[in-house]
């Protein structure tokens, strides 16, 4: 509790779990695309409980179904079997107490950065005037305050994704779902923006589900990393990353960090994906 940090209760596999602290709960979730002989078993069954305030990464090779899993948590895709509960309620349709973001941003080209952030509010019927301060603060925290009135096409890829973070978080959702939001950025920009994402998360501490195929990224950002196997994707290991935040260069060079990265590499090596 020192440094004003909150301790984060670890998520656990469902075995022996008491069901009090989890916000997102997946039981036997399976997804099969298509029917009959042409059916593709995308992944599952997956059981996991994610407790509030976690930053959990779904880390796996491409095609392992981690994005599908995220869409199902958002209620945008129905599982073929099993059930998903958010806040104790079964997910049956699109969830709205969430913020989502993808590799291709959800910024619309006809609005400025500020207009795009306000779009999230307008779509939800939240009066924009009431949260003007919050918009400004959020923009400032990702160093976009001077670009509020620019259009997305006037910004670099990294700036666009930072603006998209603001759009996904302005309504202070309880859950933020991020599907490879840094996937299209170059390595240096990625590194830079991870820090922004981390500080945004630390400010309001939403529960974040982060889909990525970068081991280092997962270890740097997450309280927990769910290592997912190649298709059909299953959770091989759930690793609790017990390192202090913010995870700057010092932390990243620590032996504990490197050991985590190494352990995960070993797992993937075992499956022959790296």
């Amino acid at each position, binding site marked *: 509790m020192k440094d004003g940090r909150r301790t984060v209760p670890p998520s656990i596999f469902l075995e022996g779990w008491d069901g009090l602290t989890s916000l997102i709960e997946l039981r036997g979730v399976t997804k099969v695309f298509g029917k009959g002989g042409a059916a593709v078993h995308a992944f599952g069954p997956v059981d996991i409980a994610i407790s509030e305030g976690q930053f959990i990464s779904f880390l796996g090779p491409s095609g392992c179904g981690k994005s599908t899993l995220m869409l199902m948590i958002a209620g945008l895709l129905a599982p073929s079997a099993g059930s998903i509960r958010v806040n104790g309620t079964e997910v049956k349709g699109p969830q709205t107490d969430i913020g989502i973001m993808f590799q291709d941003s959800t910024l*619309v080209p006809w609005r400025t950065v500020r207009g795009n952030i306000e779009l999230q509010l307008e779509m939800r019927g939240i009066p924009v005037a009431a949260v003007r301060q919050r918009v400004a603060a959020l923009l400032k925290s990702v160093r976009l305050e001077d670009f509020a009135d620019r259009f997305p096409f006037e910004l670099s890829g990294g700036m666009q994704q930072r603006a998209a973070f603001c759009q996904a978080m302005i309504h202070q959702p309880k859950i933020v779902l991020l599907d490879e939001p840094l996937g299209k950025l170059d390595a240096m920009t990625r590194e830079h923006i991870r820090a922004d994402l981390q500080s945004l998360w630390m400010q309001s501490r939403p529960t974040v589900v982060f889909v990525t195929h970068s081991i280092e990224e997962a270890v740097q950002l997450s309280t927990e990393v769910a290592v997912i196997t190649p298709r059909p994707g299953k959770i091989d290991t759930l690793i609790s990353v017990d390192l202090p935040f913010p995870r700057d260069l010092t932390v990243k060079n620590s032996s504990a960090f490197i050991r985590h990265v190494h352990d995960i590499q070993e797992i993937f090596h075992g499956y022959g994906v790296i």
Partner: protein
Amino acid sequence: MATASSERGNSLDRLSRWIGRSWMFIAFFVGFFLFWEWSIVLFKIPLYILSPPSMIVTKAWADMSRLVQYTYITGLETLLGYAVAIVTALPMGLAIAFSSVLRRTIYPFLVCTEMVPKIAFAPLFISWLGFGLLPKVIIVFLVCFFPIVLNAILAFNSLSEELTRFSYSTGAGTWRTFFKIRLPAALPQCFVGFKYAGLNATVGAAIAEFIGSDQGLGFYIQITTGNMRPELAFAGIFFLTAIGLVLFGTITLAERLIIPWHISVRRAQG
């Protein structure tokens, strides 16, 4: 005084910049007409086959009142047909895009009729509706309707997966999602249809007039050609082109005003 002169300076500046950018085009344009003018003399082309541009201008000037009147008539047919096409095709495209029943009934029918050359209906319409304005307006309408409706269907059906998911995640209702996301996202593709229809509109009007008419530029071109007055036929073609240019220019201007953020507009403006 200072402001007036600086304003003049500005417009002079702008003119010289425009010339700087377009001189090659202007030179080509002027060269083309000069070549035309001289080739009549050079290749001894009889005047009843092809007339030099200078003769087109002088003879057209002499017949200006008729040309202006016919331009008005053909322009009216074009504009009415085009406007009715937009007003009906957009809602229909929208309805088909959002209704699975219409998509399985009217849509395949539309795709089939798109294969029918609409101009082939012109004699029928004229036999049904006479020589007046209405059959021409209908032909222009038919020619314009299909590109607008087909592009509108495409436009309203092709919202990106990301924006669709984003819209769902906000819990916004159908109308709010439509006005805040679907409609603006669809506008660029709608304008593709508007432009294509705009290019076809004058073609429809002219051909409808060829088939049965006693006024309008299509009629004028046909009659003057029959009378071995190619210089007047060319004058008619130039006025017809002018109608097309004004229509297309208006659509392009509307596009710039309505979707200045779109990549096609930004690219066009450099």
